[in-house]
C-alpha cells in the first residue's frame, strides 16, 4: 500500500512557467542558441535579393561590346564578362534567381516529403515499404545524371530545374519525417489521442508532426544549401536558367573558358557567391540541429 503513495520528493519541484505565446515564446527564450553569424550572412543575401534593382549599378543583361572582359576596377567592381556585362550587378540579380529556385524547390520537397513520410511512418505496411523503396531508387541514381535524364525527357527550362531540386530533396524529407514518426507510433500520448477518437490524419497533424518541426527546419536549411549547389551546377552545364539571365552557375560557365588565359574574375566572383550562400545555409542548419539535439 505504501508504494502507491507518491512522496513529495518525487513530484517535479515546480511546474514549468506558462508561456503566453506558447511555442513562439519558447523559441524566444532560445534565441541565443538559435542565432549565429550565419543568419547574418543569409540576411544579407535576402536583402540583396530584395534590393537588387536599387543596389545594382548597371543593367544586369545589357551587353556593352566596348567594355568586354575588363578586370575589376572602380567602374566595374567585379569586372565585366565576355559580353561586357557588369559582373557585380549580375551577381546581385542572380541572388534572386538562385534563392528563388532553391526556396521553391525545397518548399515543394517539404510539402511532398513531410506528409508522405509521416503517413508512411505512422501507417507502416505496404505504403511504407513502397515509399522507402522509391526514395532509395531516386537516391541510387547519381544526382546530376538523374537531372540530365529529367531534362532530356521534359525539356530544358527553369521550371524543370525547380522540379529536379524538389525531386532530389523530397526523399530526404520523407526519410527524416519517417524516422521521427516511427518511434512515436507506440507512444502513450498517441494511444490517448486515438482513444479520444481522432482519425489517423488528425493524430498525425496535431500530435506527431509538431515533433518533426525542429529536424525538418534544420534539414530545410541544409537542403537549401544543397539546392543552391544543384542549381549552380546544372546551370553550369547549361541546364535550367537560360543565358543571359543572371544566375551564378551560368556566370561561372561563361568565364570557365577564359580561366586558362588568366581572366579569372568572370568565374571567381559568382563562385564566391555560391560558396558563401551555401556556407550560410549550412551553418544555420547545423545551428538548429545543435539546438534541438542538446
Amino acid at each position, binding site marked *: 500500500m505504501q508504494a502507491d503513495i507518491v512522496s513529495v520528493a518525487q513530484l517535479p519541484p515546480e511546474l514549468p512557467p506558462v508561456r503566453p505565446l506558447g511555442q513562439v515564446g519558447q523559441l524566444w527564450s532560445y534565441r541565443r542558441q538559435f542565432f549565429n553569424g550565419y543568419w547574418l550572412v543569409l540576411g544579407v543575401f535576402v536583402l540583396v535579393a530584395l534590393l537588387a534593382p536599387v543596389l545594382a549599378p548597371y543593367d544586369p543583361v545589357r551587353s556593352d561590346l566596348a567594355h568586354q572582359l575588363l578586370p575589376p576596377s572602380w567602374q566595374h567592381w567585379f569586372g565585366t564578362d565576355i559580353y561586357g556585362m557588369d559582373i557585380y550587378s549580375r551577381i546581385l540579380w542572380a541572388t534572386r534567381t538562385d534563392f528563388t529556385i532553391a526556396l521553391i524547390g525545397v518548399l515543394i520537397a517539404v510539402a511532398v516529403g513531410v506528409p508522405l513520410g509521416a503517413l508512411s511512418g505512422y501507417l507502416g505496411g505496404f505504403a511504407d515499404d513502397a515509399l522507402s523503396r522509391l526514395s532509395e531508387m531516386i537516391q541510387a*541514381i547519381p544526382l*546530376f545524371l538523374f537531372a540530365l535524364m529529367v531534362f532530356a525527357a521534359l525539356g530544358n527550362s527553369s521550371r524543370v530545374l525547380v522540379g529536379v531540386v524538389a525531386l532530389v530533396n523530397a526523399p530526404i524529407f520523407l526519410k527524416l519525417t519517417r524516422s521521427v514518426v516511427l518511434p512515436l507510433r507506440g507512444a502513450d500520448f498517441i494511444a490517448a489521442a486515438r482513444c479520444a477518437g481522432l482519425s489517423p490524419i488528425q493524430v498525425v497533424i496535431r500530435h506527431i508532426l509538431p515533433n518533426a518541426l525542429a529536424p525538418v527546419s534544420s534539414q530545410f536549411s541544409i537542403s537549401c544549401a544543397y539546392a543552391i549547389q544543384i542549381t549552380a551546377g546544372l546551370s553550369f552545364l547549361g541546364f535550367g536558367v537560360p543565358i543571359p539571365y543572371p544566375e551564378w552557375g551560368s556566370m*561561372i560557365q561563361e568565364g*570557365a573558358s577564359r*580561366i586558362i*588565359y588568366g581572366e579569372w574574375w568572370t568565374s571567381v566572383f559568382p563562385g564566391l557567391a555560391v560558396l558563401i550562400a551555401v556556407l550560410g545555409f549550412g551553418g544555420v542548419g547545423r545551428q538548429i540541429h545543435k539546438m534541438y539535439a542538446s
Partner: protein
Amino acid sequence: MNQLRSLAAPAARWSLFVARRLGSAGIALLGVTILVFVVTHLLADPVYLLIGQRGTPAMINSMRHSLGYDQPLWVQYLRYLGALLHGDFGTSRFTFQPVAGEIAQRFPATFELSVSAMILGLLWTVPLGVISATRPGGLVDRISQAIVEFGVAIPSFWLGLLLVFFLYYKLKIAPAPIGQLDLQIDAPPHVTGLIVVDSILAGDTIALTSALSHLLLPALTLSLTSCPPILQLTRNTMIQVLRSDFIRGARALGLPLRTIYWRYALQNTLLPVTTMTAMTFGYLLGGTVLVETVFSWPGIGLYAVQSMQRADYDPILGVVLLASTIYILVYLAADLAALFIDPRVRDAS
C-alpha cells in the same frame, strides 16, 4: 549438440541476411529500370526522344507503330528490360554506334580518375581525422572542421577552375585542362584502357608523366570535395572508440599513445569508414559530371553531358543505368564486407 546449434544458428541468420540484402539490391536495380522507363516512356514521348524535333506527324505515327510504342505499357517495359539484359542500351543518334560499346570505351577514364581521387582522399582524410580525434577542440581539430565545412560547401567545378587558374596559369605546375594526355603525346597501346597502367606496361615514361600530371588537378578537386565526409566520420567514430573501456585499459597498461591511436583505436574506427569510402567511390564511379566537364576528362560523365548537348538521349539513359547499378552493387559489397569483417555486425543482423 548445443554448441553445434549455437554455431549453426548464426550461420543460418547470416545467410538469411545475405539473401535479403541480395534481394533488396535486386529490387533496387529493377526499380531503377522502372524509374528510367517511366521517365522516358510516360513523362516523355520515346519516339520524340528518338527522332527529335524534325519529325512530321505521319513519320512519328509510323515509327510509333514499327517500334512497338503503341503496345500496352507492360509489354513495352518487358521488351525494354529484355533488351537491357541482352546488353542493348540503344544506339547513339550522333555516332550511330551502340551505346554499350561507347560507354565501355569511356569508362576506364572515369575509373582511373575515381581511383586516383579516392587514393588521394584517403591519404589526407583518415590521418587528419585520427589526429583531430586525439584532441577534440584542439588546433588541428578546428582546422579540419573548417576544411570539412568548406569542402562540402565549395562547388566542385569552381574549385577545379580555381586550381586551373593557380596551378596552370599562375604557377605553371599543372597542365592545361584538356583531358588525359598532352596533345603532342601518343597514347600508349590499348591494353587495360587505363592510361597510367597502359603506359607503365608499355614502359612509356613520357606518356606516364603526362598522364599523371593530367590526373593531378581533377583528382585533387574530387578528393577535396568528395572526401571531407570521410574525415568527419573518421573523427567522430574515433572519438567514440577512444572513450571505450579497452582503450582505457590499454592506457592503464601503459601502452604508448602511438600504438593505442594508430593501431587499436584506428582498427576499430575503420569499419564505418570503409563503408563510407565504398559509397563515395561508388558515387565517383557513376561519372563525376561537373569535374569531368571542367577538365574535358573523356569519361562517362562528360559523355552524358555531350550527348545531352546533341539531343542524343540513349547514351544518357545508358550512363544513368550503369551509374546506379555500380552504386547499388558497391553499396551491397560494402554491407556484405562489413558482415564478414566485423563480428558485431554479424551478431546484430
